[in-house]
């Protein structure tokens, strides 16, 4: 019962938070300096993690498919399979999962600590809004950074595949690149990138919600941080299915 109650509370709380973010976000002032700081902290600082994840994913994919398909004489399909998988799915999803782990946890623990030490109350007591000062800059930074990082991850992932194709599968870089360009369409690219805007919200909003609703002192901060990462990961993975389905339907119309 408590799981259902918590789920209802989470859904209601996140809906209210989303409404506050929209209504306060549309009213000036917009704290550009805070948004820039968050873009640096959320985006730039996550770049190494995203690069490593994307590179390894591309390399492993190329190796697995290359060695598997070699038996049937199909290793020339490796560039096609790897690039499509990365562009449509793995680049956006793995980037978002990494961001959920690094950024989601960071946001929840920071906001939770601020709540426990009454800094959130101090923001209110000084006549300012925690939504404007804390939540909106983080949400906007995630909406900007997650798609950008996913775009970089796509390139690096394909690059990783190319490296393995060249070094392990005897596919020349020119051949590999040509096959990638022949395979990927703008629709494939947009299908993957379109999802990242939703994934950004799946990371930022639960992270802020759990951080702002921490109770039970420092232990509560730890619990909220874990819950935030788990929630964001589940939302990304489950949401990915429905978003993929939705984008397929849109593609049929186009």
């Amino acid at each position, binding site marked *: 019962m408590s799981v259902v109650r918590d789920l209802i509370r989470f859904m209601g709380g996140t809906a209210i938070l989303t409404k506050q973010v929209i209504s306060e976000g549309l009213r000036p002032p917009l704290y550009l300096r805070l948004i820039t700081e968050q873009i640096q902290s959320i985006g730039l600082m996550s770049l190494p993690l995203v690069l490593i994840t994307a590179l390894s994913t591309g390399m492993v994919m190329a190796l697995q498919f290359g060695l598997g398909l070699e038996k049937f004489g199909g290793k020339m399909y490796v560039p096609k399979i790897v690039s499509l998988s990365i562009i449509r799915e793995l680049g956006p999803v793995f980037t978002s999962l990494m961001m959920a782990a690094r950024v989601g946890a960071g946001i929840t623990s920071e906001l939770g600590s601020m709540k426990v*030490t*009454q*800094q959130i*109350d*101090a923001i*209110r*007591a*000084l*006549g*300012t*809004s925690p939504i404007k000062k804390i939540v909106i800059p983080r949400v906007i930074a995630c909406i900007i950074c997650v798609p950008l990082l996913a775009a970089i991850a796509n390139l690096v992932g394909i690059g990783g595949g190319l490296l393995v194709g060249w070094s392990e599968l005897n596919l020349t870089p020119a051949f590999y690149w040509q096959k990638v360009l022949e395979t990927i369409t703008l629709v494939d690219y947009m299908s993957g990138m379109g999802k990242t805007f939703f994934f950004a919200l799946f990371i930022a909003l639960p992270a802020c919600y759990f951080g702002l609703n921490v109770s039970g002192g420092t232990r509560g901060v730890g619990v909220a941080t874990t819950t935030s990462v788990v929630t964001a990961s589940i939302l990304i993975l489950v949401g990915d299915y429905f978003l993929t389905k939705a984008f397929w339907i849109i593609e049929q119309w186009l």
Partner: protein
Amino acid sequence: MAVIEVKNFTKSFGSKLVHRGVSFSVNQGECLGLIGGSGAGKSVILRSLIGLEKPDQGEIHIDGEEISRWTERQLVEIRKRVAYVFQNGALFDSMTVYDNLAYALREHTDLSEGEISDRIRQQLEEFGLQGNDFVYPSQLSGGMQKRVGLARSIILGPKVVLYDEPTAGLDPYNTKKIQDMILRLKDRGVTSVFVTHDMPSVYAVCDRVILLLNGQIEASGSIADLGKDPEGIMQRFINGIEGA
């Protein structure tokens, strides 16, 4: 004239009734001490005076305006006039002392950065904190953090200051510093509500005191009258005979 007027304040948390019909008022320039056992809900009342909590029933009048049902946006105007000093300072730990003090000035005034800088230097000097401008709160002692918290709260020149245990856990030197600052603000006509367990500070800064027990006001009186009834509940509380 009453600057703060609380009428029939009732508040519960879950099934726990914390306050039952608490009413009191604080006059212009007066310092009211709010004492009572731990968990008696003193801080809840204090937080409600600035809209950080909402009463379930009752009214809160600040400067004649009933604020208990105001929205966060409406409360901004009240929060410029009513300062809240948090028990642990509640300083923004990602900001330096300077930026903590500049926070409200940047938000609510049209002062230039130069004017803000002058104002902050003056404030730091008044609070004996000069030279700590670019230090982070975690690098300060507890007493200094509380002084910075007080300096930050009153930088807009509020009409009312609400103190939540400002001397708790401080050594006698820092306690005296905080008391002196509160008295200086009082001399300037600032109205105050002082929540504390620290009776020497109550005697030092308050004009009147209210005892909160079991969710109600059990006793109240002026500081001058405190010792007059040795068998009264107020004196028994102060002497540790009666509690929460």
